[in-house]
């Protein structure tokens, strides 16, 4: 075209005008720590695996999940999901049903036979002794294996699983699920030797040629309380009861069962008692429902199943066919104080669920390990005072949950890996938490949480069938997609779209975006309209 001078212009010519020079603030992409991830005791990258689940790529989601936690099907059942409590979506409508999706993924993996990705590094040849095949030990072994080491688990019980097998009733964790996830770990190359109680760690390590050791022996000894009891009084401890049920030898409890305690174990026992045929299953707890350490959902489910509660009560004495309880009141500090007011309750059996302790006799010959109140003292890297011996799970106290134990195992494995090569493990610095205030929630449409199906009450009172069902694929997808992806780009294209200067370059699926600072004028629209708060405006140096 023989175009007129100046009046008619060619396309593309404005690119000569680098409007980036106008900028006083520049947008920068950041990744923040999502509150769910921050709250996960197992250190799962929840948002990371939800990202793939949202796309329906469940295998990739599962693979992402198991980078941190090898037991998603178990997690999806027994974890008390602090992640959901931290979830920002809870401030919008309801938190994302992370736990349900996790279970869905775990079950999918079992159903489809998905396997872990091969170890990240080639074999180091280093053998690590792991004492106890509970969640801490399994987790530690798994992560060590991923890091190229050879873990060997020695388990005192006949079957691996620890508290997951001997403490959690089947209606919460079907054994097929447990077995499947343990089997996958064995397939991954972890040696588990059962019925092999380690009596002396030092000698076992020496004899077995182990370069390091992780102690995950758990807390299997029931704490006792002194209760004056007649000879005929039938008093059991919760762990023994649960263990016997698991071993197929349920004890006779009678019609009326009193469970003493307020933790999750107390609830497990009370609900188990119902399933064993008790007409009455009553939990006696010295404080109120609000103060109960047991998880609220468990209390709710127990109530549904007809478990009764006696709040603000202690057992003063037990005798054949009855217990004497004393009513308590809370003082101004919230501590229960006796009132002197007594009451008799008929009871065929009393089950004590007052906590557990560890059997630490295997450390008798180990020097430098400090034990306070039955709890092994470890540093941040879970290493005891004896170099090369690490510990985690219930033995180190703190939060005694499966999830926490898995987290301990992972952290210990990383520390062991470092220690084996003469380093000290330093975890990567965590980014700032993606708080709710950083989100632009306009872009998330309203979508309430999906309620998981539950087993009908009749069956819940007579069988050990799993109470809480899983999600269908549709539901799981829906639930996954409720994730706000707090603090991390999820490729919603808002920045790409809202830039009036086309100064955002879209890099393609999974590649996110890049700013084109040649043209970015620094208006800040991208940051303001980023739903998940993954862009910050930073002052330009002038």
């Amino acid at each position, binding site marked *: 075209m023989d*175009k007129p*001078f100046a009046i*008619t212009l060619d*396309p593309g010519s404005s690119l000569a005008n680098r409007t980036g020079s106008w900028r006083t603030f520049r947008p920068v992409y950041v990744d923040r720590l999502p509150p769910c991830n921050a709250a996960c005791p197992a250190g799962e990258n929840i948002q990371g695996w939800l990202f793939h689940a949202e796309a329906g790529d469940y295998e990739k989601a599962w693979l992402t999940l198991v980078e941190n936690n090898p037991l998603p099907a178990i997690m999806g059942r027994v974890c008390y999901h602090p992640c959901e409590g931290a979830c920002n979506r809870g401030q919008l409508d309801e938190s994302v049903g992370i736990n349900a999706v996790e279970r869905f993924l775990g079950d999918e993996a079992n159903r489809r036979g998905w396997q872990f990705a091969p170890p990240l590094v080639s074999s180091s040849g280093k053998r690590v002794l792991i004492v106890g095949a509970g969640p801490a030990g399994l987790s530690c072994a798994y992560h060590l294996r991923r890091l190229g080491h050879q873990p060997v688990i020695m388990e005192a019980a006949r079957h691996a699983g620890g508290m997951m097998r001997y403490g959690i009733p089947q209606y919460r964790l079907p054994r097929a699920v447990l077995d499947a996830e343990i089997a996958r770990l064995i397939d991954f190359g972890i040696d588990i030797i059962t019925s092999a109680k380690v009596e002396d760690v030092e000698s076992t390590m020496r004899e077995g040629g182990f370069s390091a050791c992780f102690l995950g022996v758990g807390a299997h000894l029931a704490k006792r309380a002194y209760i004056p009891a007649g000879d005929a009084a039938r008093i059991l401890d919760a762990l023994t009861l649960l263990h016997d049920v698991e071993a197929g030898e349920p004890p006779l409890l009678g019609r009326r069962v009193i469970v003493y305690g307020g933790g999750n174990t107390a609830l497990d026992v009370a609900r188990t008692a119902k399933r064993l045929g008790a007409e009455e299953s009553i939990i006696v707890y010295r404080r109120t429902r609000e103060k109960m350490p047991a998880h609220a959902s468990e209390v709710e489910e127990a109530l549904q199943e007809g478990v009764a509660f006696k709040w603000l009560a202690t057992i003063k004495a037990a005798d054949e066919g009855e217990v004497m309880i004393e009513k308590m009141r809370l003082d101004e500090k919230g501590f229960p104080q006796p009132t002197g007011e007594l009451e008799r309750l008929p009871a065929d059996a009393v089950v004590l669920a007052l906590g557990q302790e560890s059997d630490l006799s295997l450390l008798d010959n180990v020097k430098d390990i400090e034990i306070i109140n039955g709890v092994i003292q470890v540093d941040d890297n879970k290493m005891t005072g004896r170099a090369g011996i690490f510990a985690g799970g219930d033995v180190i106290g703190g939060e005694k949950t499966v999830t926490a134990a898995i987290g301990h195992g992972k952290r210990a494995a990383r520390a062991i890996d470092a220690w084996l090569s003469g380093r000290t493990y330093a975890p990567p610095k965590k980014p700032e938490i993606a708080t709710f205030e950083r989100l632009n929630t306009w872009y998330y449409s309203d979508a309430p949480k999906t309620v998981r199906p539950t087993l009908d009450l009749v069956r819940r009172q007579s069988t050990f069938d799993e109470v809480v069902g899983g999600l269908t694929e549709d539901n799981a997808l829906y639930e996954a997609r409720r994730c706000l992806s707090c603090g991390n780009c999820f490729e919603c294209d808002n920045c790409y779209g809202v830039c009036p200067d086309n100064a955002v370059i879209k890099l393609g699926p999974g590649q996110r975006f890049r700013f084109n600072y040649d043209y970015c004028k620094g208006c800040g629209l991208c940051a303001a309209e980023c739903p998940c708060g993954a862009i910050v405006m930073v002052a330009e140096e002038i």
Partner: protein
Amino acid sequence: MFEQIEGSRAVAKAVALCRPEVVCAYPISPQTHIVEALAEMVSSGVLSPCEFINVESEFAALSVAIGASATGARSYTATASQGLLYMAEAVFNAAGLGLPIVMTVANRALGAPINIWNDHSDAMALRDAGWIQLFAEDNQEAVDLHIQAFRLGEELSLPVMVCMDGFILTHAVERVDLPTQAQVDAYLPPYSPRQVLDPAEPVSIGAMVGPEAFMEVKYLAHAKQMEALRLIPQYAEEFRAIFGRPSGGLAHAYRTEEASTIVVAMGSVMGTIKDVIDEMREAGHAIGALGITLFRPFPTAAIVAALRGARRVVVLEKSLAVGLGGILATNVRMALAALPIDVYTVIAGLGGRAITKRSLHALFRRAEKNDLDSLTFLDLDERLVARQLAREKERRKSGPVAENLLRDVGVIAARNY
């Protein structure tokens, strides 16, 4: 083929023979008959394919033509008087964008007072808008100039205004030789735009140009218009070859040989002037005339060549630069500045005032005796004007001038015979 035909219809037929693709129109006298005739031809399918757009104003009419022309369509519209002023902004714009629109201006006076009759005030008001301006002497020339206008405009990428006297030509039924389609096709190639809105080559037309290049843009527009001075005689020659008659060109001299007095004028009044010249020549006067066909660009060289032998030049024009005098005359004076020729400005025929042979005879005879002021208003009612001026001197609120004058004249409607 000869036809006894109204000027407007003849022009419409000529335009149709040029195969315009978009015609837009807004009614204003005395242009209306042209677009009415084109509407008929489009409606009946005689002119097809062609889009005839009835717009809501002259401003829109030319704007539609701008859009159409920029899209590569041969575009035409027509207007007059107030209509031309109403589209003034677009008139400049079409030229600035270099769009070869052809527009007929059926010349008419400008208000106030509103007046529908002929003079050249409208075209003169927009003489510097960047359009080529051609003035037709009779309806034959009006027809011929339109055909040449498309050729010229499209070659130069410039819009062309073909001016023909309102009513006097547009409404006159007279003999016109209308060309055949084959002749027009032979003369006028299909429109090959210099720039066009096309997704295949997506240019931006109509950029904002700042001080760094605006002068250059304007200079180039001037240079391009000056190109017309070279092309027009050439196209007129080619026209004669195909159509068999001379038409167009820069200016026509009439009996200027040995003329000591030459009358310069534009448009239909040339016919009356020629009759007067003939009669005066017969009576022994050394007088001739020069009809100017091309007003923009101004054919200075051709005018100097035609007038250099005269002792005096009488510029008779149908427009008035209020506060100065003549417009055509000013241009002629500029052209003749270096020559020892007396130039007289005569303002005539404003608002349809008849220019009669009798008045011209008297005027030219006075001119020959150097008995003219440098600025003369032909057939001005001096008494009437004097009375109003006196009235205004007396009191400030003397009332509306036009009404006062009409009261003095003693008629309600103007008569022109």
